[in-house]
């Protein structure tokens, strides 16, 4: 496996795009993507933060061998993150292929094994030995569970998972023990935010054990009206129950968002259309734009597409721009380091080129 080719695959990653970008999944008018991740460890070997270098190496090599020999993983690419620069690591975080935790990690033999479609990735030596992740567009938690379960079984044939009958899958942090499963959905909720109805809803879902986060997951800010909702409890519920509950909660929020959109259209149609087209105007003409402003405007444009007010743009294009306008992604694309003000110029240029392909 080409761990020495890691940098080569990195370049490819700047051009390729993940399945969820296509914006074609069920209920994609509100749901950007669904994700499940499983935390897994190997019996008796210390967890990465407490492990010796040879333990970490051992785990990396087990996965390397699996990638070479197992038919399911043969088409996966393996990245060894050891000699990646902070910028390159940040880029992988922005692509959702590794976590912030893994990017900031100091220990050696951190790795990432991902498939061609960029739906599945296995983070090696993260907070846990393995973090298996699967992402699809729209609301597709059940389908994701089917796929990730299979990957998990396949790895389980090669390694002895750390597991106890009572506590389930044993994880580095006791907040993940049990199923080791975090299921989440990324929702676009501009109308609920606009009409100030979101607070009540989020308070209610927090009471029943769900966590709300921003675009990049744990510890991040909410931008562009994108909210990530995930289960908090991992012990004492089956995987199917966790998924079922999250799907029910999501459907309720989607219903509320759709109602809020109808209300907006009924009472403020002109205002709403004006906001959407102004966003389009600024995005297609701006020469300097920050990521916060761009995300806000893209949220309005996305709403325009979702409400079929804007037809010359699709969700795939918006998803693609949203990914590429991030700081590290911009610099990887430009193949040079850019300071904050240079990035704002580069970002405006990239958005213009994507939105008006004819004029460039």
């Amino acid at each position, binding site marked *: 496996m080409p761990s020495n080719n890691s940098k080569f695959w990195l370049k490819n990653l700047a051009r390729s795009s993940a399945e969820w970008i296509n914006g074609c999944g069920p209920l994609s008018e509100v749901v950007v993507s669904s994700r499940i991740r499983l935390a897994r460890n190997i019996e008796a070997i210390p967890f990465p933060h407490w492990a010796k270098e040879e333990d970490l190496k051992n785990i990396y090599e087990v996965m390397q061998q699996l990638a070479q020999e197992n038919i399911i993983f043969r088409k996966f690419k393996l990245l060894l993150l050891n000699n990646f620069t902070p910028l390159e690591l940040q880029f992988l975080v922005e692509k959702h292929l590794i976590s912030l935790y893994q990017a900031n990690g100091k220990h050696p033999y951190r790795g990432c094994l991902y498939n061609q479609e960029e739906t599945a990735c296995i983070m090696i030596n993260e907070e846990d030995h393995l973090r298996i992740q699967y992402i699809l567009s729209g609301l597709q938690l059940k389908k994701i569970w089917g796929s990730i379960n299979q990957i998990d079984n396949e790895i389980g044939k090669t390694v002895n998972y750390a597991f106890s009958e009572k*506590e389930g*899958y*044993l994880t580095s*942090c006791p907040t993940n*023990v049990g199923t080791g499963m975090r299921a989440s959905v990324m929702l676009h909720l501009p109308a609920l935010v606009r009409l100030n109805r979101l607070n009540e809803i989020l*308070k209610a879902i*927090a009471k029943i054990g769900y966590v709300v986060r921003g675009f990049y997951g744990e510890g991040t800010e909410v931008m562009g009206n994108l909210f990530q909702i995930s289960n908090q409890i991992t012990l004492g519920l089956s*995987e199917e129950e966790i998924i079922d509950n999250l799907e029910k909660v999501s459907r309720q929020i989607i219903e509320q968002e759709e109602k809020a959109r109808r209300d907006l259209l009924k009472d403020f149609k002109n205002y709403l259309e004006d906001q959407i087209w102004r966003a389009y105007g600024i995005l297609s003409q701006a020469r300097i734009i920050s990521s916060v402003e761009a995300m806000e405007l893209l949220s309005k444009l996305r709403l325009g597409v979702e409400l079929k007010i804007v037809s010359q743009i699709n969700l795939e294009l918006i998803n693609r721009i949203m990914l590429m306008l991030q700081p590290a992604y911009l610099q990887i694309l430009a193949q040079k380091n850019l300071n904050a003000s240079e990035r704002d110029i580069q970002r405006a240029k990239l958005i213009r080129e994507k939105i008006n392909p004819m004029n460039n």
Partner: protein
Amino acid sequence: MLCQICKKKEATIMITQVIGGEKTELHLCKDCATLFGDKFSIISFPQFNLDDLLSGLLKAFDLYSQEEGRMTAGEIKCSNCGLTYQDFMQTGKLGCSICYQDFRGQLLPLLRRLHGNSEHIGKVPLQAKNKLDKINQIKRLRQELQEVVIKEDYERAAQIRDEILKLEGVTKKKDAK
């Protein structure tokens, strides 16, 4: 004011969270804020900060330290990886899978607090479990084999040898797949 997690360093960062309409303030030192900030998500707009995991964990820690009789629990060491319960209290992370056995008494109330449950009812890794069972069975049979050989019970020894070969054969076939 001292940090509410480690109770050692000066608290320099305040985290506000609103849980069920009730505002809670947490005063943390820089180290604990980075550690738990990443883990438990500090979302910048306070109305939406609904992650009550941290406070749950803190309550558990508080409860723990209040129980005088348990003060020596911090000294308990994992027999496999050497992590002490004190280490766990400082980082919020366990050292290895065996820690769950060795700290069981201390962890159970924490798990109940975090999850409202303490028993797993989800997926069981069948393949690994079968394999592990088999390895243990082979180990036991090898021991028995030594014993019967000493006792010169060769008939039983032959039986055991066949059993071991059979078990090993199955394991190998599975691996080859």
